């Protein structure tokens, strides 16, 4: 038990106890500390790489995924990560910056991945999200559609879906939507 009573004499009129150590210096925020740890321990699959526009800003970075198998083989997709002050209590905000014909990613770059929203838990890390995103390219899931048209095509006609993906990645129209080229 701390005896505050005996201590309080020392703080009259806002005079503070002189600091002898470094405790007065600015400290990294808990979010900052945690994301540093996450990033330093990133174990990227060989199809993924990161880009830090400002290496001193660990809260904003990009993830580049270049799938080497599946429908999206040969494409190159950039995701923007924004880690907020409440990380890891809240998940980072992740958007796909490359236009992609994908059932779980819409044309504005919103991504439907459970751990980015309803299933996020503070024990998960940036690495968990990287693997989750990578998995989306290997196993697009028509059950949870964000791009309903793409999901319907995947469900009804796999060949057509495959050729649509390729068309989009080469740069061109799928239906009346134009996709920029994103082949490596």
């Amino acid at each position, binding site marked *: *038990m*701390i*005896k*505050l*009573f005996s*201590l*309080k004499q*020392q*703080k*009259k009129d*806002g*005079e*503070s*106890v002189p*600091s*002898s*150590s*470094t*405790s*007065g*210096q600015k*400290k*990294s*925020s*808990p979010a*900052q*500390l*945690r994301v*540093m*740890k996450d*990033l*330093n*321990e*990133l174990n990227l699959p060989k199809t993924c790489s*990161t880009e*830090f526009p400002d*290496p*001193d800003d*660990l809260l904003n970075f990009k993830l580049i995924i270049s799938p080497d198998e599946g429908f999206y083989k040969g494409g190159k997709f950039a995701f923007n990560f924004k880690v*907020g*002050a*409440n990380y890891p*209590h*809240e998940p980072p905000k992740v958007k796909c910056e490359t236009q992609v014909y994908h059932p*779980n990613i*819409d044309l*504005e770059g*919103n*991504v*439907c991945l*459970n751990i980015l*929203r*309803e299933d*996020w*838990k*503070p024990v998960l890390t940036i690495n968990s999200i990287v693997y989750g995103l990578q998995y989306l390219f290997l196993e697009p899931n028509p059950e*949870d*559609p*964000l791009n*309903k048209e793409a999901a319907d095509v995947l469900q009804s006609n796999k060949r057509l879906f495959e050729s649509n993906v390729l068309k989009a990645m080469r740069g061109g129209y799928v239906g009346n939507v134009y996709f920029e080229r994103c082949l490596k």
Partner: protein
Amino acid sequence: MGSKAGDSVDIPPERHAHVRKLLERPGPFTHPEFEPSKEAFDGFSSIVRVLIVGAGGLGCELLKNLSLLGVKQLHVIDMDTIDISNLNRQFLFRMTDVGSSKSETASKFINGRVQGAQVVAHHCKIQDKDSEFYRSFHVIVCGLDSIVARRWLNSMVCSLVEYNEDGSVKEETLIPIIDGGTEGFKGNARVIMPTMSPCIECTLDLYPPQVNFPLCTIANTPRLPEHCIEYVRILQWPKDNPFETETAIDGDDPNHINWIYEKSLERASQFGITGVTYRLTQGVVKRIIPAVASTNAVIAAACATEVFKLATSCSIPMDNYMVFSDVEGIYTYTYKAEKKENCIACSRSVTTLEFPLEVTLQRVIDYLKEDPDYQMKSPGVTAIVNGRNKTLFTHVIEQTKANLSKKMTELGIINNEVITVADETTPVARDFKITYKDAGMES
């Protein structure tokens, strides 16, 4: 001083007769080291400096409780202004105060009403104040509704703790945080003694996660009115940019809420969903949790009691977490939450490492890898240089490799500067203070 009451006014002793009784005689529940005395009340009343964080529902209660209890040196900090919806429970505010600063209005009210009160208002963000400010208080009471703000304050107060040579805590640097929180009919109050009892970060898991609906449900299979509102908020707003390009949604702007409300209504009718209202829209957008005045009163009372106990030692403080619920009947329970070993906020002792002045970053990293005490695998190093975060090195960022051959001093790490090191061998990043053998030579 600026208050009309001021400390020159003589407050008759009868005024606090009931409080004095607690301080002038021992009882079965008094702390073993408590020394009752006639002077105890005056000490408590005039010397103790208390900071109240937040001048909302809990803050108004706390200001009332503590000032009536006799605490003269009260400070209150809040960046918010008064909204009409606050008036039902934030009883220090009146209709004419809508739009004014919460902290200023609340302190003006108390100073005018409670004889001897000298509440000082700080109309700003908690982040605008530095460590000297927080260090000047004996106790900090928190009535916040934001987890981010709580975490910031917690980590600030934890960082004020200093250690003796032998590693023991310098008691005079410990500032207890009394944290109150309410959500509808539920609430909690807790006593945080930095480094000794669990802090906010230790028990972060106790806060319920935000409710987030799956994006695909929102986009394709909405069933609830909330799904429709979330659709407009998350997907339609950035697409349509109804106001100006890239305007973020302002939950306090009626134009914004109205737009979202109308679009949500349209979407709801497409899917045959009922229940979208303006109120619900505002609630979802601002993530409003309904506040219940009586819950605030109970929790604030518990917090104020803990301030009194800590400041006077007249009774043993709560150890350390009390939950309260009056959803059905009344339920309350106090338990001892556990401290997290290696907590990112409260278990961060700083280890000092000494190097020659010429030392390079590579050499420091090699040391952390080779020294038997650390045996790190792939340390990443950050620091705060001139108030800004700086990434000195991490193997995941190619650009930082160029720093390895540089001297620590060239990288801005002067004598006694702290670096933070993350490595897979430690559960959290840890701090090292760098000192230089020939530091005397430095200018």
